[in-house]
């Protein structure tokens, strides 16, 4: 029971964090068809900008400045770099963002070194939210989840309840038609790209104070975020919320479970045979918890490439 409740709480907060990063990625892909390899780098950039700013002006300023800076970087990328390669097709756009990801990672190593930096949450947030099963549950985990929920609600309201949201959704579905109706579509694209980047930057600024802030954080999260957007359906915001929670819960539960294929086969009396074969059959779930998401992504791509909630195949 203790394991189940703690794992659920951790899984949901981690899932919400994943969602903050994947929301921007899936929004950008849905609108422009660009799979942005640099998106997780925006997340890392957010953490480092927040670290640099907060060491001088305090945590809250850092939290405010990081998404703005990262959003501006995103807009610059969309405005000045992507159009140059657009004529050569989506493959070149993807390769360009891939190169940018490399550059951002190396620049961060250049300025902040190869090792984790000491980016900490402020003292006023460092308390336990409640006492459960003899341990204190840190408030900051709930804070991360709360920020994600507020952000998602704001985004949802913006997209569904305002005129801007209608234009954005029109630009996503039929850009040429929306442009013919007199809307400035390039501007919309730039702002969507910037917003997506800013969300990733905000996620980095919030999460960097809790998880380690190091130059590998982008790469580590990046592959998981790809899994999330593919499983949820490229371009679907709702899908990526569901997939984020799924992956978050899975990864927090998997580390504590020692199930293996041999155990499963044991139910049919094949346990001893499986253990004698060894290899894949005796691997415990906890040790392959990093593998399962990729297997899931592979299955989704092959069986239903539109993902759980995507529309386009």
């Amino acid at each position, binding site marked *: 029971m203790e394991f189940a409740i703690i794992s659920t709480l951790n899984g949901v907060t981690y899932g919400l964090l994943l969602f903050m990063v994947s929301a921007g990625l899936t929004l950008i892909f849905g609108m422009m068809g660009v799979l942005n390899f640099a998106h997780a780098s925006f997340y890392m950039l957010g953490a480092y900008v927040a670290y640099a700013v907060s060491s001088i002006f305090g945590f809250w300023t850092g939290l405010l400045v990081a998404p703005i800076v990262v959003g501006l970087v995103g807009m610059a990328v969309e405005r000045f770099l992507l159009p140059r390669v657009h004529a050569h097709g989506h493959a070149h756009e993807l*390769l360009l963002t891939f190169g940018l990801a*490399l550059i951002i990672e190396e620049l961060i*190593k250049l300025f*902040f070194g190869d090792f984790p930096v000491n980016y900490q949450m402020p003292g006023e947030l460092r308390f336990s939210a409640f006492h459960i099963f003899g341990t204190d549950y840190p408030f900051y985990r709930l804070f991360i989840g709360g920020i994600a929920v507020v952000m998602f609600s704001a985004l949802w309201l913006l997209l569904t309840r305002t005129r801007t949201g209608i234009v954005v959704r029109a630009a996503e579905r039929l850009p040429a038609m929306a442009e013919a109706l007199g809307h400035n579509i390039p501007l919309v694209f730039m702002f969507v790209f910037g917003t997506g980047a800013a969300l990733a930057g905000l996620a980095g600024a919030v999460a960097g104070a809790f998880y380690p802030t190091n130059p590998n954080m982008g790469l580590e999260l990046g592959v998981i975020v790809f899994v999330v957007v593919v499983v949820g359906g490229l371009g679907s915001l709702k899908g990526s919320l569901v997939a984020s929670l799924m992956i978050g819960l899975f990864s927090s539960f998997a580390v504590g479970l020692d199930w293996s294929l041999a155990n499963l086969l044991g139910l049919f009396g094949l346990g001893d045979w499986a253990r004698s074969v060894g290899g894949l059959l005796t691997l415990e779930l906890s040790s*392959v918890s990093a593998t399962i998401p990729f297997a899931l992504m*592979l299955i989704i791509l092959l069986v239903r490439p539109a993902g759980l909630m995507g529309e386009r195949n």
Partner: protein
Amino acid sequence: MPNLRTLLILAVLLVLLIAVPPFLGLGWQNALVNVLIASLFALAFNLLIGQAGLLSFGHAAYFGVGAFAALHLMLAVEDGLPFPTPLLPLAGAAAGLLVGLVAGYFATMRSGVYFALVTLAIAELFHSLAPRLEGLFGGESGVSSMRMPWQGFTFGSMIEVYYLTLAWVVICGLGLWAYTRTPFGRLTLALRDNEQRVRFLGYNAHASKVIIFAVSAMFTGVAGALQAISNETANYSLFGSIVSSQVVLQTFVGGATVFFGPVIGATAFALFSFLVSDLTRSWLLYQGLIFVLIMLYAPSGIGGVVHHHIRNRRQLDWARLAGPYLMALAGGLLITGGVVFLVESASVLFGEEYARLRHAAEGGLPAFDLFGAEWSPVSVLTWIIPAALLLGGIAVLIRARREIDTLWARKDPSDDTLAETAPLGGEA
């Protein structure tokens, strides 16, 4: 077209590759082995992106599989299996082909971005599972073995390994080139340009793509096996995304549209990393910058630009172009100088050593050493130099480019009917 001149150049290159290395030091021999392996890897990779139009982001999987297959065979040879050492890469080829057939069957069910994601997921599967499978991949420490002597060759010295690698790379390179001349090679190009039409003509597009994928994986496996033979060890990091991304970088910097383009990129990167990695810690940053600049300004890569010039060589007024080209070169050098200065001073100023110096100077900003001179970080002069280099370089480049464009526009237009057919091509 394999005209006489191209053949002559290749022959001279081959003679140089055979004759020169015995006179080089061990470090250079080792670097050349790496160049050859990277070249074969990039050529095999380019079979997919350059010719079939499929962008794989997980070619590390087949490279690693080839390496581990060769190592397991080497271990068996150590235990007395009578298998000739020079034929070890066959194990890599077989493993690459097998895994490539399975992975390719699934990956080529999708195209475009989805294809890239499938290959990425497959490589990540290998990368995350390999450290857990002790028997196959030796856990976290990997598998190690020794090269066994065969027929008087001890394979103890680097030069013997070099010649073995050279032989395999030349044979495989010729094999890949011959592949492009076969009817199936033409079908590969057709699949890239218009898959629907290929299907309409009665070909089985999926089966063809599986074969292409498997062939690419097979030659990648050979490259992996050669690396295993040269290093005598491998671990799960061979499956990592760094290996996959390096080959993407090299191929596109070299030029995916020209057959030997990837070799240019692989050679440039492998040699540069050998020469520069001792001098700077920021080599990967320069690599990324070069890649992005190539993507932005010469999407067909170095090979593509050179090819474009060779094809138009008779229409161009070389005497008048020489001036602007030299100017462009000078501009490029100025910009390179400015960027290198900024990057290197940043790496000094934000490094640990300088932090200690600052601590010793009690909050002041002491001068730092760079390029054999001393620079003060608070002096204006220190920052005027790179700024002047950058601005000057950009101004010179813009001017040179304008002149080059006008001269190109004046060339004899009779050759324009042979316009680029490749979708990846096209440059200024």
